[in-house]
């Protein structure tokens, strides 16, 4: 009975070790970039052709070139507006993260608290946020705060419910193991429950990221604030009133870009946290 060398002795029996994701072949990588870009270019060309051939007036449907011009000419109005919307979106997301995760942890620790707060969480979730906006505009000290609260309420619930679900979905054997080694409830929370809730949390984060932008825009529509400190959604409405369609398209484009950026960012965070261990982030190899 000497020491065992598993690499040798297990070879041929159950040495399925180390089969991690193989590289995507280069050809497929190129295809993955080229095809979507090509499809977009074709779409824009088609748009341009449709507008020029049919001679559609700019105030009905601007062509891509008009939008391009507007992007440069109107940047003085639109960029600050974008920043306002971004500020609301991210602030709301951060508060929702802290609040959602914090409350989920509290809920999971105490069954009574969970039962008591559950109806409030559901009421907040199922009530269409746009319907609360007028009330918030009355009660909040200023419009910005009202917008922030709106975006927060919408982003909050997916994080709360996903995190709570995740904290409750811990492997029972691992819980037994922690109990066996006399882990305190704090240790169990930090070393077991929170890590095993990460995939759920990340799903909640990706939903909440998209929703917080949507909520910020919808809240701005409802608030309709003018002048100083107004966001992109208000600029969008304003462009519509003035039939300045190129500017409206630019505003839309910026919102779309922001949405993509948020999606990319949250997906990247999720990948960073999960790619070493969770099935969702690992390429299936058969």
């Amino acid at each position, binding site marked *: 009975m000497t020491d065992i060398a598993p690499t040798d*002795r297990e070879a041929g029996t159950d040495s399925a*070790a*180390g089969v991690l994701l193989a590289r995507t072949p280069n050809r497929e990588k190129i295809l993955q970039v080229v095809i979507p870009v090509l499809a977009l270019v074709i779409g824009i060309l088609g748009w341009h052709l449709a507008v020029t051939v049919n001679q559609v007036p700019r105030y009905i449907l601007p062509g891509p070139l008009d939008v391009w011009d507007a992007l440069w000419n109107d940047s003085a109005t639109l960029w600050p507006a974008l920043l306002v919307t971004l500020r609301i979106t991210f602030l709301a997301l951060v508060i929702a993260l802290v609040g959602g995760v914090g409350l989920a942890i509290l809920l999971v620790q105490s069954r009574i608290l969970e039962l008591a707060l559950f109806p409030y969480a559901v009421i907040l979730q199922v009530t269409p946020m746009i319907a609360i906006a007028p009330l918030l505009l009355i009660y909040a000290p200023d419009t910005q705060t009202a917008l922030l609260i709106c975006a927060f309420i919408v982003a909050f619930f997916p994080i709360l419910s996903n995190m709570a679900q995740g904290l409750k979905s811990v492997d029972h*054997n691992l819980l037994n*193991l922690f109990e066996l080694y*006399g882990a305190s409830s704090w240790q169990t929370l930090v070393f077991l429950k929170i890590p095993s809730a990460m995939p759920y949390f990340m799903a909640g984060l990706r939903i909440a990221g998209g929703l917080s932008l949507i909520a910020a825009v919808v809240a701005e529509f409802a608030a309709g604030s003018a002048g100083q400190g107004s966001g992109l959604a208000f600029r969008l409405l304003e462009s519509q009133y003035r039939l300045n369609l190129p500017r409206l398209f630019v505003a839309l484009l910026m919102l779309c870009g922001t949405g993509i950026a948020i999606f990319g960012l949250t997906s990247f965070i999720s990948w960073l946290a999960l790619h070493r261990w*969770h099935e969702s982030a690992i390429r299936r190899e058969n």
Partner: protein
Amino acid sequence: MTDTALSPAEAGQTPDPRRLVVAMRDVSKLFSNGTLALKGMSLDVRAGEFISLLGPSGCGKSTALRIVAGLGAPSSGSIDWPSSRINSRGLPEGDVGFVFQDPTLMPWATVFDNVHLPLKLRGVSRAAARDTVMAGLASVGLADFAGSFPRELSGGMRMRVSIARAMVTRPKLLLMDEPFAALDEITRQKLNDDVLRLWQEHGVTVIFVTHSVYESAYLSSRIVVMRARPGQVHADMRIDQPAGRDQAYRTSETYRQTCQVVSDALQKAIHAAEAAP
């Protein structure tokens, strides 16, 4: 059965010089759904023993093991730890290691961090635990896999990590709950040898739950055969095993005879349960 050296070990009749590690006294367990999982089980576990709890499904062997581990209190009876410091939960301080049927590893943590866990929960830092953890991994032949994640390992290797984790606190008592039931025969035989080697090298006391006659006959110095409805001890036999058991022993006449005796006892236990009202 002349030279197989099997003898019934009536608990308490022959005075045993070895230290008593844990004693179950008339332990019963009634589940909330009304099932009597365990009835009046008494078992003296002495230092250095390798005890297998052998029996069919539903005979309460896993329940007994969990009660010893402190996972779920007995409905009646008591568990005594005569030679251990007892903590506030009535369990011996750091004296017990447990290996579950599944490897039960944390998928988000590396092999090293998984084995480090029991020490971390006691406040031993990563740096301070490094040597102990690496020695534990080396003893199951996984030193090269410290940085791997559980999903990158095969089933047998995961189970080795689980065993290394259970041994990292240097427990006096190692509890194993059908640890190799889900593994293929070849891997299982290797892991049996690993466990036997750990038992011999570390002098740890082992309680091993299994439903395999061959596994129990190969590993144990004592086999407790259990029967179902309700779960209880049916037979308790000592087995004098040769020290160096290996592949040759698996095909030896001695081993075959041991298997025969154990198998007969198990059959009797099963029939007794079926005959019960």
